Each structure stands twice: as structure tokens, then as C-alpha cells.
């Protein structure tokens, strides 16, 4: 239990989270390379460890913020619509690109873990690591994986994309807005997409499309894989 009873109040977690986020944004504005998601999380973890407050208590308030991810995901439909006219002709090609990326992501994640002698449930937990958390959890359950491992990998894949995604693409000389959006949305779902919103509306839009398509493709492919495995 926490040393101070008032820290157990959900309002405390929400306030600390918003404060840390605001500070992270200020740092990000000053130094562009500062990743808001990492900069916001580290001080919160430090405070929790310092106050000896378990994550489960913090998350009573944190859960209120997490719930809003649902409506926020819905809101991604707004830029999708606004740029829909400009994008409509490229959508079938974008779908093809995202489909290829999803297949590569699922197979490389599973194969790498398998080649390193991870037990089957761990291998299966790695397969859906590129898609948004709710889809990934369902896919993981369907493949008899371990949901906690999937959640950790999904978040890490998102943070990787939000921090290193654009620099890596730059190194590969990939700078076009659509290409960046497609790659980040497919590899790093909502966390990657959220990191693009402040950069460019076009990147965020393509990323939203890619993230949605990757989620749908991955759940369909996983359903097929699960059927094959039962056979």
C-alpha cells in the first residue's frame, strides 16, 4: 500500500499524468528529439517508485484516461474523411502495401522468437505485436499466447515507432508523407500515429488508414492461422 492515502485517489493519478504530459510537451517543444511518450512516462514511474505506490493503484485513475482511447480512435476517422478525397485513388494500393507489411510483421516476429527457442505461447504472443492493443490482445488469445507479453510488445513497438520510426525511414531515404504514414501506421499502430499528428496532417491520415487496415488484416490472417493450427 502507498505511504500516503491520498495517492490512492484516482484524481491524483490523473493530475500527475497530465502534469507529466504537459512537462514532456514543453521539453519536446524545446528539443525536438525528446519523445513526449517516453518523457511523460519516466517521471511518473519515478514518482510511483518513490511513493511505493503499486501500478494497480495508479491505474485506478489511469484507467479513466485509457478509456478515452476508444473515442480518440473514433476521432481518427475525421482526418481520414478530410483527406479521403485526395487519397481515394491510392487506397487500394495503400491496402496492398499494408497487407504485405502485416504479413511480414507477423511472420518475422513469430519466426525470430521460434528460432531463439522461445516456447510456443511466447512465439504466438509475438505474432500480433504490430497492431493496436485491443486487436492484438484478441489475436493473442485466439493463438493461445500470453496477453501480458503481447501488451508489452505492442507498447514497445509503438514507442519504437514514435521515437525511432521517422529517423530510420530518413536513413533509408524515405521522406514522402504517404510513405512515412503507411510505414509508421503499419509498424506502430496508435502510438506511432499519435506521434505523427503534430508533424503533418497527411502523415497522420495515411497512418490512421494503415493502422486500421493492419488491424483488420492481422485479425483475419490470425483467424486463418488459428484454423490451420487446429487442423
Amino acid at each position, binding site marked *: 500500500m502507498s505511504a500516503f492515502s491520498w495517492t490512492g485517489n484516482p484524481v491524483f493519478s490523473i493530475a500527475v499524468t497530465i502534469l507529466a504530459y504537459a512537462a514532456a510537451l514543453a521539453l519536446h517543444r524545446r528539443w525536438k528529439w525528446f519523445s513526449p511518450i517516453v518523457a511523460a512516462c519516466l517521471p511518473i514511474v519515478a514518482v510511483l517508485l518513490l511513493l511505493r505506490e503499486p501500478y494497480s493503484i495508479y491505474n485506478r485513475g489511469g484507467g479513466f484516461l485509457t478509456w478515452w482511447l476508444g473515442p480518440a480512435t473514433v*476521432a481518427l476517422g475525421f482526418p481520414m474523411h478530410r483527406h479521403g478525397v485526395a487519397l481515394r485513388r491510392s487506397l487500394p494500393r495503400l491496402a496492398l502495401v499494408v497487407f504485405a507489411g502485416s504479413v511480414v510483421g507477423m511472420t518475422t516476429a513469430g519466426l525470430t522468437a521460434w528460432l531463439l527457442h522461445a516456447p510456443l505461447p511466447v512465439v504466438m504472443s509475438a505474432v500480433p505485436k504490430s497492431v493496436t492493443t485491443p486487436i492484438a490482445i*484478441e489475436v493473442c488469445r485466439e493463438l493461445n499466447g500470453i496477453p501480458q507479453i503481447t501488451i508489452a*510488445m505492442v507498447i514497445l513497438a509503438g514507442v519504437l515507432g514514435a521515437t525511432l520510426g521517422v529517423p530510420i525511414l530518413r536513413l533509408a531515404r524515405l521522406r514522402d508523407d504517404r510513405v512515412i504514414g503507411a*510505414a509508421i501506421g503499419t509498424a506502430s499502430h496508435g502510438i506511432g500515429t499519435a506521434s505523427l499528428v503534430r508533424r503533418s496532417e497527411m502523415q497522420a491520415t495515411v497512418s490512421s488508414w494503415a493502422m486500421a487496415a493492419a488491424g483488420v488484416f492481422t485479425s483475419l490472417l490470425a483467424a486463418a492461422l488459428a484454423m490451420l493450427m487446429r487442423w
Partner: protein
Amino acid sequence: MMERMDYLFGTAILVGFFLVGSLLHRVGVPIPGGVLGMLLFYLALSSRLLKPAWVERASTLLLRHMVLLFVPLTVGLMDMGKLLSRQWLAIAASLLISFLAVLLTTGLLGRWLLPAEPDAPAPQTGKAAQGAGR
């Protein structure tokens, strides 16, 4: 109708679509509520059932601060150390290799298949301009 509806009304619409999506998911559609809600919301905007002005402010606000909403989940990584440490090599290698593979496959394939067409900023052709009329 007012030119621009306020945040509260727009937020209520977004929440409504999320709840409808979640309900459909619970009934058996194999796509999560948020993503389903997003697709329905997009269709509603495209078919002009919803006016963009009703939801513009609320959507923009939520999207601009979407990173904040991911913070509590990410802080949760602090509890997963023990679980991850047993298979850390396989998990880390799988994560990194697969992340790079997806990013570069999508990126390179995208550069080939998604050329920066002139239709990007402002649709100029007659057909596109017609569709863009808001």
C-alpha cells in the same frame, strides 16, 4: 444549426460511435469497438449524415493529445519486468527485427506503389473537386 458545435456535442458524438462500435463487437464482429467506431464514423462523415463542423473541434482536441491517453498503459510496463525477463532475448530480438522488417517493407513498397501524386494537397480535377465540395 450553429456554424460550429461546441466541444461537448462533438465529444458526445465520438463517444456514441465508440459505444455503438463496442456493442457491435460484443455481438460478434471480430474487430475492436474503437476501430469499428472509427470506420462507422468515417462512413457517416462521407455519406454526409454527420457534418464535419459538428465534430471538428472535439476530434482535433482528442487527436492532438492522443499521446496523453497512451501514458497510463505505457507506465504499466514497469510491472512487466519479471514476466519479460525470462524470455527477454527472444522477445527483444523478435520485437526489433520484426519492427525493422515491417517499417522497411512498408516504406520501400510504399515508395514504389504510392507515388507522390499531384492530387495530394488540393484536388484540381473536376471529378475530385466535385467530391470535395463541403
